[in-house]
């Protein structure tokens, strides 16, 4: 509650609720120390890689345990745990997203383990892995925070570690360039967000999301323009983080320069966390920016999100048509997918359509697996071929038939074709949009999917219909192989039995308790 302004210290019992975050932080410090004290001859991939993976899995275990514990007996509306004057919340919204972040990060660590050995440009092998941990903690904080301050701290934790991670290939000038670009755009984005937040605080006198939501209807009459400024700056700032059009221009450059696993991290975890933040902020504040007299602010802000979504989908897919560089292409595909993910957020809640979160998280899960899988295949191919051009995939049918088959599944999912998680993810979002009568958006979504066939099938053309210069078999490292096949299996499972996941989400998530910060 926002009136609880006085400081409430954490108790030992609260520590238990924070187990996922705390365990991850503690293990992070432990790995840092290990890296420092252990002699050089100990393999850093082992310390960095496998220990980081272990830490992520431990934290994942805690989150799942929390989720099951809170929703035991099919009670989706279980009480939320509020910590530190409601600035940090343990609810199912956060828990579900944390599962996505941790699972995504684990897969990314796996593919990093597989790909680092051959990458001579990376000098600090262990750091490269364990820096992912604070980044994930930041993402988790963003998903769980109940006020603007803790949200911003989470955002910065995530951002600053990502800047370092992007520049991790120290011997490559491209990586340095990418890190610098990311630092600048990321800084601008943070500035935008902070600027917007300051307006919200100025108008409502509260940093608590619930407090802002409660105060907004009263403030509309006097501070309409200021509220617009606040909301739109926040949206623009997160638009940069999410990399939706027109804020996407940094993404191809950064992805190209960054180590491939880090690019996957930006595409999945970073993007997901920013989307989660937008989701939480807008539904607690802008959603209530409506009175009987004047309902425009709420409408306009949500409509702006839909416009961003449409722009992301169309720009991402059309720009990717002529792209020959795989990482740039995947970056642009990420722009389009950011658009798809923004649709359920921007649709707002109406009487006929209130399943936004389920649609959002289902597609996020599908997106996680297909994107990480595609990046994993890319690292496998890149080991033998150089720059990550589309034509490096040529003749893959002959060189690695099973990996090529795996890639087909992932590509079909990315293109939104059955039977795959991507198909149902898009279908659920489409149905949601049609429920909300946003037919123009339905048309744009479907149209951009069709455009995207061309470049996703471009991979298939290369893999199956062309023969490359090299005949040598591609050897996929075990860790990468595991990552690829987990992603493929999950993509297929999501395509064959989408109902199970959706039921699970519905059983855990409740609008009133888990989303709203009262």
């Amino acid at each position, binding site marked *: 509650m926002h009136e609880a302004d006085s400081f409430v210290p954490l108790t030992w019992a609260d520590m238990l609720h924070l187990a996922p975050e705390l365990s991850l932080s503690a293990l992070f410090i432990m790995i840092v120390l290990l890296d420092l004290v252990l002699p050089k001859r100990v393999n850093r991939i082992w310390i960095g890689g496998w220990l980081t993976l272990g830490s992520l899995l431990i934290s994942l275990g805690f989150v799942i345990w929390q989720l099951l514990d809170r929703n035991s007996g099919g009670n989706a509306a279980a009480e939320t745990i509020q910590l530190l004057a409601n600035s940090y919340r343990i609810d199912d919204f956060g828990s579900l997203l944390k599962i996505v972040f941790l699972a995504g990060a684990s897969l990314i660590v796996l593919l990093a383990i597989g790909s680092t050995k051959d990458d001579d440009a990376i000098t600090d092998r262990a750091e490269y892995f364990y820096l992912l941990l604070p980044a994930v903690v930041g993402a988790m904080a963003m998903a769980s925070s109940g006020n603007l301050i803790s949200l911003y701290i989470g955002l910065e934790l995530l951002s600053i570690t990502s800047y370092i991670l992007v520049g991790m290939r120290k011997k490559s000038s491209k990586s340095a360039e990418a890190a610098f670009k990311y630092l600048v755009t990321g800084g601008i984005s943070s500035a935008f967000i902070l600027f917007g937040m300051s307006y919200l605080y100025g108008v409502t006198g509260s940093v608590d999301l619930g407090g802002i939501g409660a105060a907004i209807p009263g403030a509309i009459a006097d501070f309409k323009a200021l509220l617009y400024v606040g909301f739109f700056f926040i949206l623009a700032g997160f638009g940069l983080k999410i990399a939706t059009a027109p804020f996407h221009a940094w993404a191809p450059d950064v992805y190209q320069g960054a180590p491939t696993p880090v690019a996957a991290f930006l595409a999945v975890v970073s993007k997901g966390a920013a989307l989660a933040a937008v989701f939480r902020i807008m539904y607690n504040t802008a959603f209530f920016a409506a009175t009987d007299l004047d309902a425009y602010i709420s409408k306009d802000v949500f409509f702006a999100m839909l416009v961003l979504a449409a722009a992301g989908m169309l720009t991402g897919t059309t720009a990717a048509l002529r792209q020959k560089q795989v990482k740039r292409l995947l970056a642009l595909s990420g722009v389009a997918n950011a658009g798809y993910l923004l649709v359920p957020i921007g649709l707002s*809640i109406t*009487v*006929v359509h*209130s*399943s936004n*979160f*389920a649609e959002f998280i289902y597609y996020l899960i599908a997106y996680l697996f297909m994107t990480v899988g595609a990046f994993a295949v890319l690292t496998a191919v890149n080991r033998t071929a150089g720059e990550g051009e589309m034509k490096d995939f040529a003749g893959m*049918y002959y060189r690695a038939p099973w990996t090529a088959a795996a890639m087909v599944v992932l590509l*079909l999912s990315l293109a939104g*074709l*059955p*039977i795959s998680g991507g*198909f*149902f993810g898009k*279908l*659920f979002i*489409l*149905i949601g949009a*049609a*429920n909300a*009568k946003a*037919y123009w958006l*339905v*048309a744009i979504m*479907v*149209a951009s*999917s*069709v455009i995207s*066939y*061309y470049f996703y*099938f471009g991979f*298939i*053309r290369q893999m*199956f*219909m062309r023969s490359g210069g090299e005949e040598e078999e591609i050897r996929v490292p075990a860790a990468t192989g595991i990552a690829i096949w987990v992603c493929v299996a999950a993509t297929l499972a999501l395509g064959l*039995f*989408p*109902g199970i996941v*959706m*039921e699970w989400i*519905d059983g855990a*998530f*409740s*609008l*009133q308790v888990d989303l709203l910060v009262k």
Partner: protein
Amino acid sequence: MSILPDIPILSFILLSPLLGLLVILFLPKHSGNLLKTAAVIATLIPLALSLWLYADYDKQQSGAVYEEQLDWVEVPLNKELHSDVSAFTFKLQYELGVDGLSLPLLLLTGLVTAMAALGAFHVKKRWKAFFVWFLLLEFAMLGVFLARDVFLFFVFFELTLVAMYFLIGIWGFYNRERAANQFLIYNGLGSAIMLIAFVILVNTAGFRVEQIGEQVQYVYSGSYADIIRNMTDAGAMVNQPAVNEMGALNPFVMSDTMHRTLFIMLLVAFGIKLPIFPFHTWMLKVHAEAPPAVVMIHSGILLKMGAYGLLRFGLLLFPEQAKSWAAVLAVLGVINILYGAVLAFRQMELRLVLAYSSMSHMGIVLLGLAAFNEIGLQGAIFQLVSHGLISALLFLIVGSLYERTGTTELTELGGLARSLPFTSGALLAAGLASLGLPGLSGFVGELLALLGLFESMRWLAAIAVLGVILTAVYVLRSVLKITFGPLPDKYAALKDARLIEAVPMIVLLAFIVLLGCYPSLLTDTVQYSIGDVFAQLLATRAGG
């Protein structure tokens, strides 16, 4: 008493190609003959099963119904805003069914695919992958004709797209990649429009409030049966006024504009597949570039999916709109017939002649649909089956000719009747069937469709008949060019069809003759099940 209704026969038919696919996956990659044999056997199973079903269905008349249903995807929707509701779900069923409309096409699929598998002798590389995609394609096509849930239908429809993309792009002729791309984008666009229409349909007509005792349930259903029941039920939400007497808005209402828009969307979506002029360019490329066995399937079955979809979703769900658009359909049909026929006459490449001929013949299907009476619809369905058989046979022969002569340019070919008497004979027979010689199946379809149209739109029917004459001209022109005239020396030593080529030719030809001489074999089946539905629709909803 037959045991068929007691076993999940439809699922058996649908899944049997997958069984073959599994077997093929475990066979060694380089043993071509083994793979081919396995593939042929795998295609014979659904053929045998659907023949059995067809025979049994006839006896039953409209007795037992073949329907199988399983809840596939049941998505709970958020119901926190509806306090009075016990469940709010979105349902997507694994629902299969056959009626007189889909059964002949199902059988056609089994038959043509089996013959295409036999005729796939010209595949010279990567047999294993070829037959994997081939069987997946068969699975998808069977699924299209069996599915009774709009999204399940869509899933299978898209699956054919993916499988065809591989089949064209890897095993096609010189420009195969371009043909595959064009195929993908055009048909992707069609499917996209279809998906939008389906999503809107499920959102309005698919919604139903179910009352079970005290409990009220809201359900969005993708089931075709539910949708058509809601569309015809005046009490369903979709047919309620937009604002009820208490002033509450009804979000599920389908306005007249919406009806019309949806019908047009479906017309375009399936029109691309059919293909209706001007959406036909992709189909020419596929005819010219895909390997002959795949074109047999493409021309023999995939084009029929367009007509089937148009009939099942366009006409049956939106009879009023279809009726008011009948003239447009008929005009489009006439354009298809004449445009296809004239261009077929101008082509110097046999595969393109046949491509335009397919377009022309699909125009007749449109005429049958546009006639909007029972004879016309009978004719349309008959024409679908008949053209499926004829074009499969023609492309089988094209494959044989190409294998021997290395060309399908009309200028290069000639006099083959002397060196290839059997193949030439089959070509002549197929050509005669194509131009509608009485006694062969092509005649019956054209006659019924034109008769139907003559009842409702006399003048258009008269113009369409011109197409029949043109067909005779272009068919005879190419057939005679190939079989008669001087025989170039290089073709003198060619060997006639082997047994493996002759068998599918004979089988297809046998069916063509059988249907030509004994059309009620097909028309009766159609009549039993579809007659009632149409009579009812025509009487009650379209006002006669």
